[in-house]
């Protein structure tokens, strides 16, 4: 080196940045659009934790069948491979045309609410941000039903009042937010590529695109270890602890409890945490119901509960409110 290293370095970086940064003056704006789109996709993936197959509801209708029984003290002598295989088999044997998936969701350190997207292709291309008309809508619990391609999501206040109702099916997404007196209908046609990620070992276990598929994938990827037995609603469940997923400072942990008789999932718990922030824990309690008269009557009653008053203010049909969970443990 004949010259001062600092000077040569400065000149070298100048050459690099002036020749490359100035070639496309619109590049920074393009990057902002990309960043928005990427954030939206990421939020969409997290929302899928709740949505549990809203966009693929048909695949999420699950049947209650049971595999052969075992001892309730199931963990003795069982390896994670055995439990995971049995659970995978139990999920695979669910008949998607003959059962009702009933799911109670609760959250600690957060609340249920909405993010908002637009479903026109033109808007997706422009990546325009979407004001969220439902930003003030919050619920403390949610009950989901899934049966034959119809997916219902009902959010409730701590006092048990219905805060919102969303139904997704072949006519699109219908919904109402009761305190805000807002209703919407999005036909879910001609919309943008929402960036829904393919199901891989990296994103398995969080409910996308359905709990059946997501848990099956996570089990096949060997993402769980045995965590002992734990009593849940009188069942001596087998607890499976998922490997943490760490993404951009956020740690997401999934825990799964399976019924030792049927090996079907009874509960999942997703913990979102970030350093120096409160943790948000989202819990799903599953019931896999046979379509008996009584169960179908309950489902019908739930549908009736989510009535959408025409007096409510209607959002544009391009608006797509997405129920989700928010809390200090979640980024984005």
């Amino acid at each position, binding site marked *: 080196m004949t010259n001062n290293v600092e000077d040569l370095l400065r000149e070298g970086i100048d050459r690099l*940045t002036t020749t490359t940064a100035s*070639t496309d003056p619109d590049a920074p704006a393009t990057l902002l659009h990309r960043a*928005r789109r990427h954030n939206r996709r990421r939020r969409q993936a997290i929302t899928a934790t709740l949505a549990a197959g809203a966009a693929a509801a048909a695949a999420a209708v699950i049947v209650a069948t049971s595999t052969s029984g075992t001892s309730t003290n199931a963990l003795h002598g069982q390896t994670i491979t055995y439990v995971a295989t049995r659970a995978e088999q139990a999920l695979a044997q669910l008949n998607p045309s003959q059962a009702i998936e009933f799911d109670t969701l609760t959250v600690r350190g957060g609340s249920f609410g909405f993010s908002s997207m637009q479903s026109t292709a033109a808007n997706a291309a422009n990546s325009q941000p979407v*004001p969220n008309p439902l930003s003030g809508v919050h619920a403390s619990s949610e009950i989901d039903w899934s049966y034959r391609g119809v997916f219902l999501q009902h959010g409730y206040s701590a006092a048990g009042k219905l805060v919102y109702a969303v139904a997704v099916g072949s006519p699109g997404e219908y919904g109402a937010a009761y305190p805000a007196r807002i209703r919407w209908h999005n036909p879910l046609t001609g919309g943008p590529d929402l960036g829904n990620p393919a199901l891989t070992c990296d994103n398995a276990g969080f409910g996308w695109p359905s709990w059946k598929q997501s848990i099956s994938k996570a089990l096949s990827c060997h993402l769980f270890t045995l965590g002992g037995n734990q009593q849940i609603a009188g069942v001596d469940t087998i607890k499976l602890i998922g490997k943490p997923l760490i993404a951009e400072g956020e740690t997401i942990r999934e825990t799964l409890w399976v019924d030792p008789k049927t090996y079907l999932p009874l509960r999942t718990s997703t913990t979102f945490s970030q350093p120096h922030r409160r943790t948000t824990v989202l819990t799903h309690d599953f019931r896999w119901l046979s379509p008996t008269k009584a169960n179908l009557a309950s489902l019908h009653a739930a549908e009736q509960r989510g009535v959408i008053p025409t007096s409510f203010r209607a959002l544009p049909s391009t608006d797509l409110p997405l129920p989700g969970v928010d809390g200090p443990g979640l980024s984005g």
Partner: protein
Amino acid sequence: MARDRDGTELEHLLAERGSSLLGAAIALAGSRQDGEDLLQAALERVLRKPRQVHGDAEGYLRRVLYNLAADGWRRRGTWKQKLLPVLRAETLNATQPDPTAEVDQRDALVRMLGQLPPRQRAVIVLRYWEQRSEAETAALLGCSEGTVKSAASRGLQHLRELSTPTDPAELTEKNS
């Protein structure tokens, strides 16, 4: 910026200061493509946490940018892997007199920058390209001035070592 959930303020900022920010990202990342990825990652962070911006959006975006770079935002080491064969060839060729040697030397140094650990690289870019003081650099990277001083010293020393021509005869001797 607290109200700027939709990033309108960022749009204005990028319209005015985008080239400078992209330049910094390229300097930190070592190539146009990686620089764009780095700046996009920083924008994503800012869009996700708009409430953390208090007035100075550019300052906040730059701080995020530098810290992502210092944290080795990808931690893949691809730069190093790609550059090693090139560097080896360049180091050997450096013994040959060449009229374009000085230009090559500058470019080689910039590429060698990629061999440094991410934090040293960020410190070098801030100190010797952006001409920031030790105190400013420390504030931007959230570390002490002492850390900046030692990272800059080590980084430069490393660059000097990397840029010292290796005698091919010596290599042969060592290898034999």
